C-alpha cells in the first residue's frame, strides 16, 4: 500500500465496517428467504443487527475461564484476518485491503484459525452439546477443506501466483477470462466446498437446531455472543469475497461486489431451503467423494493437459 500507516488503518476500519453490515444484512435476507419458503413473512432484514445490539446491551455476563473468554476473540480475529487480506473491491484504495505475495495461504489458514480458537473456547464451557458440535465441526471442516485445497492448487498452477490480487488481475477483461470459464472443474469443486463452509442445510451439522440445540456456542451469551454474531456477518462476507475473487472475476465497483456476493450467497440459501440436514458421517463422506475427485481432476487437467 502506498499511503501511510494511519490512512491504511482508517481504510481498513471503513472496509471492515461496510463488510460487516453487508454481511449481517445478507444474513437477514437469508432469514427472509427461508421464511418465504416456509410460507411465513419472516423477521425484518435488519434483525441480526438488532440482535447484536441487544446482546451487547445485556447487563450481566459470566466467564468459564480464560480460553472461554478468548474463544470469540480468536473467532473475530480469524474473521478480520481472512477479510483484510482479500481485495474486497479490486483496484479500490479504500476497499482494496492488504495484499502480499503469499496471501492466499494466509487466508486459508485464517479460515481454519477462527474455528480452532472457537473449539478451544467452547470446549472450556464444559457443555456436552458444545463438545459434540466442536467434534462435528472440526471433522466436517477437514473434509470440505480437501476439495477446496485441491481447487486452490489447481488455480495456483493455472495463474502461477499465490497472490489473490494477481489472480483477480489475471481475470479482468471480459466474462470469458473468469476462472469459472477457464477452469470450470476447480470452480465446481470449490463451490461445493463453499456450501460446507457456509454451514447451511444440508451441511448444518455443527449448529444443528433441534438436534444439538445450537452446538458450540451453547454457553456463550451477552457480549460474547454479540462478538460471535458480528463475526458471523464479517466471516460470511469474507468467504464470499474470497470466492468472488478466485472464481468469478472479482469486483471493480461496489455494485458488482454486492451483486456477486448476493448471488453466491443465494446459491447456498436456495440449496439450504430445499434440502434437509445430512448426518455427520453422510456429510463427511459426501465431501470426500465426488467433490474430491473433481478437485483431483481439476489439478490433473490444468497441470498435464
Amino acid at each position, binding site marked *: 500500500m502506498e499511503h501511510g500507516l494511519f490512512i491504511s488503518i482508517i481504510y481498513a476500519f471503513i472496509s471492515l465496517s461496510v463488510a460487516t453490515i453487508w454481511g449481517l444484512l445478507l444474513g437477514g435476507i437469508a*432469514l427472509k428467504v427461508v*421464511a418465504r419458503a416456509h410460507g*411465513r413473512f419472516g423477521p425484518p432484514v435488519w*434483525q441480526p443487527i438488532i440482535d447484536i*445490539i441487544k446482546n451487547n446491551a445485556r447487563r*450481566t455476563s459470566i466467564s468459564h475461564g480464560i480460553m472461554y473468554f478468548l474463544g470469540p476473540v480468536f473467532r473475530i480475529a480469524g474473521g478480520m484476518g481472512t477479510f483484510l487480506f482479500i481485495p474486497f473491491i479490486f483496484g479500490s484504495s479504500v476497499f482494496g485491503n492488504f495484499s502480499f505475495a503469499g496471501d492466499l495461504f494466509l487466508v486459508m489458514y485464517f479460515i481454519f484459525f477462527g474455528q480452532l480458537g472457537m473449539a478451544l473456547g467452547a470446549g472450556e464451557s464444559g457443555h456436552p452439546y458444545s463438545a459434540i458440535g466442536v467434534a462435528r465441526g472440526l471433522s466436517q471442516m477437514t473434509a470440505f477443506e480437501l476439495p477446496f485445497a485441491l481447487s486452490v492448487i489447481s488455480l495456483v498452477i493455472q495463474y502461477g501466483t499465490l497472490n489473490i490480487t494477481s489472480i483477480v488481475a489475471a481475470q479482468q477483461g471480459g466474462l470469458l477470462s473468469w476462472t469459472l470459464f477457464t477452469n470450470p472443474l476447480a470452480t465446481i469443486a470449490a463451490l461445493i466446498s463453499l456450501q460446507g463452509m457456509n454451514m447451511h442445510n444440508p451441511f448444518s451439522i455443527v449448529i444443528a437446531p433441534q438436534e444439538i440445540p*445450537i452446538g458450540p456456542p*451453547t454457553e456463550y451469551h451477552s457480549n460474547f455472543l454479540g462478538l460471535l454474531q458480528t463475526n458471523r456477518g464479517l466471516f460470511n462476507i469474507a468467504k464470499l469475497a474470497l470466492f468472488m475473487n478466485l472464481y468469478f472475476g472479482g469486483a471493480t465497483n461496489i455494485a458488482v461486489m454486492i451483486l456477486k456476493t448476493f448471488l453466491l450467497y443465494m446459491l447456498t440459501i436456495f440449496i439450504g431451503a430445499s434440502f434437509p440436514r445430512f448426518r455427520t458421517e453422510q456429510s463427511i463422506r459426501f465431501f470426500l467423494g465426488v467433490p474430491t475427485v473433481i478437485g483431483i481432476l481439476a489439478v490433473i487437467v490444468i497441470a498435464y493437459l
Partner: protein
Amino acid sequence: MDNKEINNTKLANEGLSEQDRPLFCDARPQSYKPLGKYVEKFLNWARANSLWILGYGTGCGAIELRPLMTARFDMFRWGLAPRPTPRQAGVFVIGGYMSVKTLKRVIRSYEQMQGPKFVIGLGSCTINGGMYWDSYNTINRLDHYLPVDIYITGCMPRPEALIAGFNKLKEMIKAGETDGQNEYARNFDWYKANQKKIVKDWNMPDYNW
C-alpha cells in the same frame, strides 16, 4: 418483602455436600442501575425488538407456542425467536401450571438467564392455580417464586392472546417498566424462602449463576 438494602453475605449452599460447595458460586445476584436516559432508551428499543424465548415447555400452555412459531402466526415478524439455551434467552414463557418438579428446573433456568430478563405467565394456572388450584403437586401463584412481568389469562389463551401479551411486554420494555431482574435481586431472600418451602430436595446451589 421490600427490603431495600442489598445483603452482601455469602450464600450457604446448604443443599450441596461439603466437598461440592467450593465448586459452586456463593455470590448473591446484584441489582443493576440503568445507564444514561437516552442510551437506556435506545437499548430498551433493541431489547424490545429482539426477544429470545427460552424454548422450555413448562406446562400444557407450551403447545400454544408451536402455532405461534410456524407459518400461521409467525412470531418472527415481531423479532421473537425461540432459543434453546437459557444463557442466550431473554424471555421465560411459563406455559401454564407449574408442578413442584418443574418449578425446580424453572428456578435453575431462570437464574442462568442473563439480565435483563422477563417472565411471561401464560394461562390462569400461573395466576391462581386455575383448574389445579387444589392439586397436591402444583404451585398456585407464580409471582411468589419468580418476578412475573406480564400475565396472559385464559385456559388456554390462543396464539392471538399471546401475541397481544408479547406486544404489551414490548411496550413495557420500551417504557422501562420491566425490572424483574432487580426485583429478584432485591427480594432474593424472600423468593428463596418461598421456593425452598415448595422444593424439598434442594440439591443445587442457592443461586445458579
